[in-house]
């Protein structure tokens, strides 16, 4: 994967709605995989059919019913009534009273049959004004009452049904995280052209846990791999993977300039000073390809970094050593690290803005690339002069208007930012030094117009 660029990361954070300047950022490009599941179970609400509603309503009215009651009160006939009761039991909307009793009473007790007619079990019936349409010959068992689901279905007029679908879901492997579904409408390949699935040995190890994770209860599943019950683009609520069903893993690919490349996501972790002393609060952001809006993730950063990075000193200690690094003591109230720089480091920490401001010190940690927000100040006058010329060169337009004044202003602003009182070069010295930069020659030449073209001739001409 390519090394993430700070500009891309900043853009990601901005689009994700982050409005703070982090103390530290870690980022990495992560390959995206498409996993095609043959059987995923979803719970889907459908409108309660009229016949079902009538049976459930009758059950609520009578307290307990049998196929015989359904036929007698609703006139649906013996066969339909049997089937309806059987289906509602199967869907969990009715519970057979006998089922409950079966757990407490041995089957085959003769007295049980005495309870199979209404007249035989008046104590289980609620009083009702409903009248029978006819006497029925349908079975008087099982006796059923409303289940909790049945009551809810009756209240809402809908019934939850379970459906099994195939789906192609997009994941990153490390950390294992669900990031979306494959947009079927954008599928551009024919089946026979599709890339082969990864061989088992090539499937990233985190995916080996998918069967287990997808069988977890929703809350646990969400924290384990980021799949919520509602998957955008798929109707119903995700319940679980059908045990033993198959799935295949492929790299998610796209074609760029006639080359096939694997899509990547940009994972960025930002750290800001915590209200807890000497600690950092981390936030995770995920940038997705194809212009999809990046988002902040609720996952715990320890799941991704596998380390305790809450402590500032611990975090700094994990960074790969290289060059000048700040310490925990250098953390400022505004979240940047103070860093006293010699000329070489100063050159790398002057940013690109016209005015002095915090800059980013590149760092590395394992496979992560990162940046620390640095408040750089020169450790000596040589470094200060270097910074002065660097910032002066960024004010070409102002230099053209008033070279000397701009030199003065830049020096003042630098010292104010650094909190120092360094003696920085004069305008005359700057003019001498900056001549080497052809791009600034217009400003330098304008500086001498007065002396060359106006003052010597002391005429009525007006200076431009």
């Amino acid at each position, binding site marked *: 994967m390519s090394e993430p660029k700070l500009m891309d990361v900043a853009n990601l954070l901005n689009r994700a709605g982050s409005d703070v300047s982090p103390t530290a950022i870690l980022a990495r490009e992560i390959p995206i995989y498409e996993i095609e599941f043959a059987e995923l179970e979803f719970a889907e609400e459908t409108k309660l059919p009229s016949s079902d509603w009538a049976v459930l309503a009758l059950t609520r009215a009578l307290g307990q019913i049998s196929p015989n009651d359904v036929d007698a009160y609703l006139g649906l006939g013996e066969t339909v009534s049997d089937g309806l009761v059987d289906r509602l039991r199967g869907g969990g909307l009715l519970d057979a009273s006998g089922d409950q009793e079966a757990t407490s009473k041995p089957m085959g007790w003769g007295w049980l049959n005495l309870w199979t007619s209404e007249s035989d079990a008046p104590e289980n019936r609620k009083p009702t004004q409903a009248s029978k349409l006819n006497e029925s010959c349908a079975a008087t068992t099982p006796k059923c009452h409303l289940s909790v689901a049945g009551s809810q279905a009756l209240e809402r007029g809908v019934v939850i049904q379970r459906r099994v679908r195939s789906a192609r879901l997009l994941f990153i492997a490390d950390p294992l995280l669900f990031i979306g579904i494959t947009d079927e409408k954008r599928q551009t390949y024919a089946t026979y052209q599709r890339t082969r699935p990864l061989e088992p040995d090539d499937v990233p190890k985190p995916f080996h846990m998918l069967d287990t994770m997808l069988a977890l209860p929703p809350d646990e599943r969400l924290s384990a791999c980021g799949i919520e019950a509602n998957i955008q683009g798929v109707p119903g609520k995700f319940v679980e993977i059908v045990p033993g069903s198959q799935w295949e893993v492929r790299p998610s690919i796209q074609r760029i300039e006639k080359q096939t490349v694997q899509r990547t996501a940009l994972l960025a972790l930002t750290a800001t000073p915590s209200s807890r002393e000497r600690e950092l609060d981390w936030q995770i952001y995920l940038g997705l390809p194809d212009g999809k809006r990046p988002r902040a993730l609720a996952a715990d950063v320890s799941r991704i970094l596998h380390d305790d990075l809450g402590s500032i000193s611990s975090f700094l200690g994990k960074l790969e050593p290289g060059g000048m690094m700040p310490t925990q003591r250098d953390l400022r109230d505004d979240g940047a690290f103070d860093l006293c720089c010699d000329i070489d480091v100063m050159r790398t920490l002057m940013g690109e803005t016209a005015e002095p401001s915090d800059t980013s010190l590149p760092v590395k940690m394992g496979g992560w690339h990162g940046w620390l927000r640095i408040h750089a100040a020169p450790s000596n006058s040589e470094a200060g002069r270097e910074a002065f010329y660097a910032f002066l060169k960024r004010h070409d337009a102002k230099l*053209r208007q008033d070279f000397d004044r701009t030199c003065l202003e830049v020096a003042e602003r630098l010292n104010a930012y650094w909190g120092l009182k360094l003696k920085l070069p004069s305008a005359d010295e700057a*003019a*001498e030094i900056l*001549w080497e930069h*052809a*791009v600034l*020659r*217009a400003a*330098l*030449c*304008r500086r*001498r*117009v007065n002396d*060359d*073209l*106006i003052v*010597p*001739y002391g*005429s*009525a*001409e*007006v*200076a*431009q």
Partner: protein
Amino acid sequence: MSDSVVIHLGEQRVKGVLFLPVAVERPAIYRVHRTQHPDIVHVSTDDLKRTPNIRNVLIEQIARAKHKVFFCSFLFADDEIVRALCEAAERLHGGVYILTALDKHLRAEVLDEPDSDVDAHTAKLQERARRHDEHLSRLAHAGAWLRSVEDCHAKFCVVDDACAMVTSANATQEAYESNPEDGLLLLNKHVAHEFGRLFAYVFLHLATLESTPGTRLDVHSINLNTPAWRPLSGIDQFRPVTTLRDSEASLRAAAIEIIDRAKEHLVIASYSFMGMESHPIGDALARALERKVTIDLLVQPRNHIDAQRVSLAWLLDRAPDQVRLYGHRRTHTKSIVADSQSVLLWTGNLESRHGWDNGIEVGIIVEDAGVASAVSAWTGDVMQRHTHVALSSPSMRELIAAGQPLALQGEWTLGLSPSMQTSLVVDVLSRNPVELLEVNGSQVLRCGDELLLDIRVDEASRRIDVVRTRNQDRMGSRIKGWLAESVVRIVGSSASSSTQGKYPHKQHSQHNDRKARRQ
């Protein structure tokens, strides 16, 4: 209905003065003429040995610059001078200010030459323009500040307000090595300061395009105010003069003054001589001739410029015994010397349309016999090695006798197109000399200044057919010969009077005048 009219060609005369190459060139000499004045040096291009004396002096002065250099030349097509200016800009960290032709100003003046005589000339101009752009880029990168004034034709250089050079030479290799050019190096501080003041005023207040120093040439418009101008002032024997649009016309006054001051002899050099018959400077020349002053006039022999032929004829006809004309194919020098006592050396030409009442030119009057003699002697040297002699209103037969080529000799039938008015063509052919030209592979009959006819010649049938009349586009024309011994029988229709048969000589002269303006 068709006519048939016979015209005998040969005695018709060319209008005005025509220059013809000298049959035998005289031994050429080049001499340096010293002014004997401590503050002024006459410098000239040794076009015989291609020794760039003007360039050398300029480079020497530029290399000595301690603070600033002002350089004005609408063309920059000389590597050496550009290198010297670049070095100065780098060494001085700026301080090199250049007035030149930028962007559209260059195209207007150089690239759009409409009727150059030959293709090669056009190619040369385009190559020169390409070099000009390259050089300007180098100058901008080196730290020189470039500005452009559309009508600035002056060529001068001021270094540190301590010395100034006024010269006829543009900053081109040709001017510094191949053309008879001269100039005066002025070491008088007052004069240099005055030229510096003029340069600063033009640079700050009259320029409309600029490219500031930087990594590349970046031409953009500028809007500047124009405060009042304080006229140039002289000192002792030196008087800097200028044409500064309508702000100062001291150059014209100076030319008239010098001419009026002549008692015996005027030595005049100009690239061109046009429109003087109705111009105050022409009036001054007429007065001089009335005073029996003799005039030696050196010009470039540009026969295709009608206005110049007419103007020269006007001067010559006023006093044929007092006026001597010299043609040099490459001369570009510009000066007037009166009685070897006073001299005006300037950057314009003796043209009525530019440089006296409009545009921007500079000059210097020096009232010193040594300086005047030096300029006069040098101009005399160029006159001595003239390349062309002048004939006043020669007939075609006289031209043939002088060695000019003959064309379409004998009897011919000239067939006109139906839309042409026969009487009109007969009239034009009867009065004008007829010249056969080749223009871009086509044959063209040029009837004086009045008519150009595209023709097709059938030698076998001795017939010339007019294909069409031609406008004034003679770009790349080559002279094939004069119809000095031809008898032409014209056949065609006299019924129609279409506009196609009209001859646009009015536009022709305007056109040529514009072309001749900038040199």
